[in-house]
């Protein structure tokens, strides 16, 4: 994300993706390349996949990034990695809130209530709790080195326990999300989710665009906190 062309390219890319996500008409029998199929029970609401899913995806990317920077901090004891870890976690919290709020508005119209404790809703809720705990822990430690170490350790422990939800959840309840096992349309597990090729293309472009946007935001945040960090150092 160094050159201006890359940034402008990303902005143009995302603009096109967002426009496509909203403008492409939904018809019963798609003929032209831009016509999306109507999914029964979802109709126009299906367009949320272009906006809500990238938020949830970016939350996971941020979570993994934060854990990896935590590991690197523990290995090198370089506070710069801690700075990156916090920045990733802070942005992850923002995307997590966005994913939760947008999903819950959509759920109101699709499933009838704002919150249903569907497996994925539960998982994103746990991620939100982990981010909350992470920042609560950070605010409770004064010494920089210690704060960085403890929060890195916590994020690694959280990182190894969260994947257990993948095994635990299907035993407890069936999913409501389109494409999950309990979906009445019988689409099967998410990997087999049948999506029209053009819809899939817009979806993947959106995932890519928002992920790159995340890295741009992350880069800005790290640079700002690095400046803050160095401007505070000499006075102490």
């Amino acid at each position, binding site marked *: 994300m160094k050159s201006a062309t890359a940034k402008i390219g990303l902005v143009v890319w995302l603009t096109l993706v*967002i426009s496509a996500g*909203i403008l492409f008409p939904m018809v019963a029998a798609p003929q032209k390349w831009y016509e999306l199929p109507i999914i029964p029970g979802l*109709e*126009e*609401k299906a*367009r*949320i996949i272009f*906006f*809500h899913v990238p*938020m949830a995806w970016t939350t996971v990317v941020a979570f993994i990034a934060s854990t990896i920077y935590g590991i690197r901090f523990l290995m090198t004891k370089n506070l710069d990695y801690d700075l990156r870890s916090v920045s990733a976690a802070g*942005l992850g919290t*923002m*995307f997590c*809130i*966005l994913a939760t*709020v*947008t999903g819950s*508005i*959509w759920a*109101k*119209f699709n499933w009838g209530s704002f919150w249903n404790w569907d497996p994925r809703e539960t998982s994103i809720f746990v991620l939100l709790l982990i981010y909350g705990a992470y920042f609560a822990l950070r605010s409770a430690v004064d010494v920089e080195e210690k704060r960085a170490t403890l929060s890195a350790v916590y994020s690694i422990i959280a990182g190894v326990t969260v994947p257990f939800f993948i095994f635990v959840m299907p035993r407890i309840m069936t999913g409501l999300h389109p494409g999950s096992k309990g979906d009445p349309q019988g689409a099967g597990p998410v990997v087999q989710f049948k999506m029209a090729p053009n819809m899939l293309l817009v979806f993947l472009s959106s995932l890519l665009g928002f992920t790159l946007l995340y890295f741009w*935001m992350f880069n*800005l*945040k790290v640079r*700002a*906190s690095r*400046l*803050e960090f160095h*401007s505070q150092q000499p006075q102490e």
Partner: protein
Amino acid sequence: MLDFLAEHQLYIVMIIVLMIWAGFLVYLFRLDGRISKLEQSVKK
């Protein structure tokens, strides 16, 4: 309000996109505030 939205589903998508946009704006403003603070501390 809810009935209207249930009938015009594209508006739901619209609300969702606006929320994401709002989230990004909040981020921008906070970054802006941080950088202004930095500028002041550099001037001192």
